Each structure stands twice: as structure tokens, then as C-alpha cells.
């Protein structure tokens, strides 16, 4: 007897949108088993994971702080993914954004002006775009695979960060430790809610979500992105420029990642450090798919992913559960999501 996957005629639209919810429920069910087998009270564990982080104003603010870069990057990436443009290098674009914006803050150290921060944002976006422009150029000019080029540029970006932070940008009063000086107040992202770290990055991310939604749903460019992704031949018959879509989506992804990067260094971190991002550029890929490549979905997916990090920390502090639980959790979530997606489009047949 053999198993065979057979394509279904049409995927149910309700199921396509509902599959993240199914995945979350299945993850919860599987994690109950996991907690029980670890010998911990599963109800208490789930409470530590999902309720405790949100039980205070500070916790909710922290959730948004953590979700901001994930949502921003995933928004940019989801535009590209819809057009089958696979930008895997958001981590590098984030780093370049942080370096361009942060470098400006260091160059104008002590310069007090309300225009400094907006300038840094522009520099950050430009930095991310410049880094994404390299794979865009290589793909449109030489038909290079952007998965490879964008990923490779991540390592180049991290080495560039490492060089700057061990050399020219090192804090002159920092005993030669690899950190820049702390940014001065004009170069810091303002905090929205006193006593928390919630900064203006979150409302900016929401505004960009709305803009992306309008672009994708109501603007011709969104239509072109979808057609190029779904039916490249039809797109070229319709006269849609594939080159233009590649450039647009890569620059959008790079710009969003660059903005996320500069908001991290000018926001919660407050200086340039050797590790700016704990892999946001890669986690955002999961967020984009978890959010169904839909702007609103991405916001919820970003919040959920952020919650697993915060919950994982609470589970360690209050239950002494290992950090690996967070990874297992995220892995299960992705696994169940992909499994649901497959089963929505294919049915399983036993063939004798």
C-alpha cells in the first residue's frame, strides 16, 4: 500500500485563510503533550507562555517593541514573495539600514535638531535599499538567483558591521570594546508611553501596513505583482515589466528592512553593537508566510511570533523550562502551517 498526494480541484478559500488558526490550535494541542511529557503542568506552562507576558502594560508594550521589526520586514518581504521574488537577505538589508542611519547619528554626534531622526530614517531606508539593489541588478541584468545573492550579502553586511565596530566607529571612551558610543538624545527614537520602551516605530509599522494594503489591493502595482507571481507568461503578454516588479519588490523589502534596522539602533539599543538583530531578517520570512503574505495577517503573525519569544523567557524564569522550548514551539507552528497548506491543496490517497 502506498500513499499518494492528489491535487484538489480548487483550494477552499475559507481554509486558506483559516489555516493559520488551525496551525495555532494544533500547536497548542501538541505543546500540551510536550509540557506534560516534560513533567510540567501544561496549563501553567501555557499560561506562562501566553498570558503572563500580556498581564501588564509593560508586557504589552514589550510585545509591540519586539513585533515592530518583524512586522516591518515581513511586510516588505511579502510583496516580493507574491511576485516570486525571493529576498532571503533582509538580515543584511536591516544591518545596512542600521549602519547608514546609525553612522549618521555618530557623524553628527551632539548635534541637536528635530530633523536628525527623520534624516536617519531616510538614511536607513536608503541603506537597506542600496543593499537590496545589488541582487536586483544582478537578477535583472544577469538573471542571477536572488536567493543566493541576497543571502550571501547578509554575511558581507555582518562583516562590514564587525569591521566598523571593531575599528573606526568604536567608542573612544570604551576601553576598545567593540561598541559605538551611545547616541545622543536627538538621535533616539522617542518613547510613546513613559515607563515602557514602546516607541513610535509601532505606529509607523501600522501606517506602513495600511499603505502596503492599499498598494497591493487597490493599486495597479499590486495587481502587477500578483500577476507576475501567479502567471508570469500572462504578465508578459499583458505588457507588465518583470524587471520593474523585481526592482520594486526588492527595493521595498530592502527599504523596510533598513528602516527596521535604524529603528532598532536608534530605539531600544541606542548605539551600534556587534549584534544588532537576533535574526529578525530570517524570522520575518516565517512571519510573512504565517500572515498569508497579507499586510493585516502579517501584523497578527508578527505579534504572535513576538509573543512566543516573550513567553519563552517567562517559561524559563517562572517554570525553569529550557530555552529550546521556544524553538520547538516556533518549529511546530511552522510545521503545522505548512502541513495544513499542503492538505488544503492536496488530498491524501491510499493506493493499494
Amino acid at each position, binding site marked *: 500500500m502506498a500513499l499518494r498526494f492528489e491535487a484538489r480541484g480548487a483550494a477552499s478559500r475559507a481554509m486558506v485563510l483559516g489555516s493559520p488558526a488551525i496551525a495555532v490550535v494544533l500547536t497548542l494541542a501538541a505543546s500540551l503533550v510536550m509540557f506534560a511529557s516534560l513533567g510540567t503542568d501544561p496549563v501553567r506552562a501555557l499560561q506562562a507562555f501566553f498570558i503572563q507576558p500580556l498581564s501588564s502594560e509593560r508586557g504589552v508594550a514589550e510585545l509591540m*517593541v519586539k513585533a515592530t521589526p518583524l512586522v516591518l520586514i515581513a511586510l516588505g518581504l511579502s510583496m516580493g514573495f507574491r511576485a516570486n521574488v525571493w529576498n532571503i537577505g533582509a538580515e543584511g538589508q536591516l544591518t545596512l539600514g542600521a549602519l547608514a542611519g546609525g553612522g549618521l547619528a555618530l557623524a553628527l554626534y551632539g548635534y541637536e535638531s528635530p530633523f536628525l531622526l527623520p534624516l536617519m530614517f531616510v538614511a536607513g531606508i536608503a541603506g537597506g535599499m542600496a543593499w537590496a539593489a545589488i541582487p536586483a541588478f544582478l537578477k535583472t541584468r544577469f538573471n542571477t538567483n536572488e536567493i543566493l545573492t541576497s543571502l550571501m550579502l547578509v554575511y558581507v553586511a555582518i562583516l562590514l558591521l564587525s569591521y566598523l565596530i571593531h*575599528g573606526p566607529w568604536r567608542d573612544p571612551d570604551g576601553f576598545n570594546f567593540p561598541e559605538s558610543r*551611545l547616541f545622543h538624545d536627538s538621535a533616539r527614537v522617542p518613547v510613546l508611553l513613559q515607563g515602557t520602551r514602546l516607541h513610535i516605530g509601532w505606529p509607523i509599522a501600522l501606517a506602513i501596513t495600511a499603505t502596503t494594503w492599499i498598494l497591493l489591493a487597490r493599486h495597479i502595482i499590486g495587481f502587477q505583482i500578483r500577476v507576475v507571481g501567479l502567471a508570469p507568461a500572462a504578465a508578459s503578454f499583458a505588457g507588465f515589466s518583470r524587471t520593474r516588479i523585481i526592482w520594486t519588490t526588492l527595493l521595498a523589502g530592502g527599504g523596510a528592512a533598513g528602516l527596521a534596522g535604524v529603528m532598532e539602533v536608534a530605539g531600544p*539599543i541606542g548605539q551600534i553593537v556587534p549584534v544588532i538583530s537576533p535574526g529578525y531578517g530570517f524570522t520575518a520570512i516565517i512571519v510573512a508566510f504565517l500572515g498569508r503574505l497579507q499586510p493585516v495577517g502579517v501584523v497578527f503573525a508578527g505579534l504572535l511570533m513576538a509573543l512566543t519569544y516573550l513567553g519563552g523567557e517567562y517559561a524559563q524564569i517562572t517554570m525553569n523550562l529550557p530555552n529550546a522550548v521556544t524553538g520547538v514551539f516556533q518549529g511546530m507552528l511552522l510545521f503545522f502551517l505548512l502541513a495544513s497548506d499542503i492538505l488544503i491543496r492536496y488530498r491524501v490517497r491510499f493506493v493499494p
Partner: protein
Amino acid sequence: MNTVNRAMAACLLAAGLLAAPAQAEPLKVGFVYVGPIGDHGWTYQHDQGRLAVEEAFGDQVETSYVENVPEGADADRVIAQLAETGHDLIFTTSFGYMNPTIRVAELYPDVRFEHATGYKQADNVATYSARFYEGRHVAGLLAGSVTESNVIGYIASFPIPEVVRGINATFLAARSVNPDVSFKIVWVSTWFDPGKEGDAAKALIDQGADVILQHTDSPAALQVAQDRGVWAVGQASNMTAFGSDAHLVSVVNNWAAYYLRRVQSALDGSWGTSDTWGGFGADMLVLSAYNEAIPADVVEMAEAARSAIAEGSLHPFTGPIHDQEGNLLVAVGEVADDGMLLGMSVYVEGIDATLPQ
């Protein structure tokens, strides 16, 4: 190591613990780790310290930890979560937590913080580190004595003072017993990457090195040394098990010595901010057993150096010491002061390499 810890715990118990009135609420002690605990290396040694605290103080303390905390925006949140969940004493165990610790400490003035390897203190933030260069002095003596090719390989992580100081301490010690010795240094730009560290060890051995030293966290170099029949020195933990023939000795970080003292002072109310930099003398560094294949006179010399350093009669940076350009760093008969050691960013004379900038 365990006997040292137990002895210390016993002393602490005798000194005042038993006399102290029983506390209703246990002291909650939190630890922030940069890596996973695993079974060897930097974070593992900090966790051994945490376990020693639990064992010594029993019901009087309650410990928790968060592992794998990135040194960026996440550090503030984790440290604040520990403060928020009622921890009275919080150890942040990596350099990158310095500014986050200072920031969170401002928000929680009643919580006591301890930051490892940094240089910023506050009323409720103490700092601590170990004089790792003392261990490297002993490693350098051994390496200089056992090498036959007179080439010693060194796997370095990042060109920060801590690492440069370690290279210089090892080199000066190796040269003091073997004037023909030379160093080959590979920078791997990581604290932990078994693949890169192993490749670096292979490259060094191919260039003639017959002793491998490292300032990285994995046992990969030791395993390569074992395969290729050369010597190596274990780092941070006792690494004997990863290559018992190649293993000269391990310089082991013993944070338990410090954690027991600080938890005791938090319990009896005498905790105050401070800046601790302890080595062999404070038991914050200890040596594993020496390899039995090392000649007895060499072991004797190494042990003599270790106890002289512990007593304070020997300093690994005793003048005259010059840098590569011939400038005098430490005058004849003098020893390097801590300020100079902390900011050390040049190689000493005789190292045939350029420090990456």
C-alpha cells in the same frame, strides 16, 4: 573545583549563615546567559556557579535563569522581566549586557545587579570579571616547554583588549621558558563556531604548530589536536574528555567562588556595589589536572607559577615589556597596572603578526 566550592560553602555557612535569622522569603537570584548552558564553556561555567549557590544556600535562595539572550534590544527586556518577577539579585553574564544592565538598574533601584566583564558601575550595579591572563601565563609556560617545533598556534576571536591581553600573557610566558618560540595567530571572528575553530586548528598545525591555544569556546581545536597528535589547552571548562592525550591542562572559570560571596552578602545585607577582578588568588580561576605525560619538572614549574600568582608574588606582566615598535610599556621591575591591562590593544615585542584593526 567541587572541593573548592564545598570548602568555601562550608566556610560561609560557618561564618554567619547559621547565625542569621531565618528568612521568610527566599532571596531570588536571576542569571542572564548569552548562550545555551550545554555541557562546557562560558555559559556552562556560570550555570555551575548558579548550581553551587543553590546547593550552598538551599531554601534561603531561589534561582532562575534565561539562556540564549541576544546582546541587543532583547537584553533590556529579559533583565527587566527578572526584576519584575521579584528577583533581588541579578547576574548578567556577558559584556554586551553592560548598557542594558545600567538602563534597567535605573528603573529598579531596589534590585541589585551584577554585570560580568564590563566597566560601568552604579549604586546598584557591581561588576566582576576574572583575571584570565593569569591562567594564560601558566598555559604559556607549559606550551613553551613542551613544544618541539617552537611554533605555537593561537586561535583568537575578536581584537578586543581581553583577547590581546591573553595573547600577550601567553607569549611572554612561553618566551620566558623558550626564547626560540614563535606564535601563529588565526582570527576566527566568533566566540563559538566549532567548524571555524577546527579549521583554524588544522591550518595552524599544517603550518608547523604543535601546541594549540584558543580564546574561543568550543572543544573543536582540542579534538583536532587529539587527531593530529599535538598538544592543546582547554578553555573555560575542564575539556579533558574531548581529547585526553592532547589536553595539557584547562584553565577553568570558577564563578561559583564569586557568586557564593555575593549571594551571602545580599543575604546578610552587606551587599554594596564593587568592581571585582579576581584570578587564582580569589579562586575565580582554577586549573584542571595536568596531563600525566607532561614532564614532572614542567608541571612543578607551572604549579610554582600558579601559586606565586595566587599569593601575589608573581605578576604575568612584569617589566621590561615593550610593544612591537619598541616603546616601553612596563618599566624594569614594575608590573602593569590594571588600567593599562584593561585597555591593552597592542602586541608585545616579539610577536610576528599584525593586530587587525
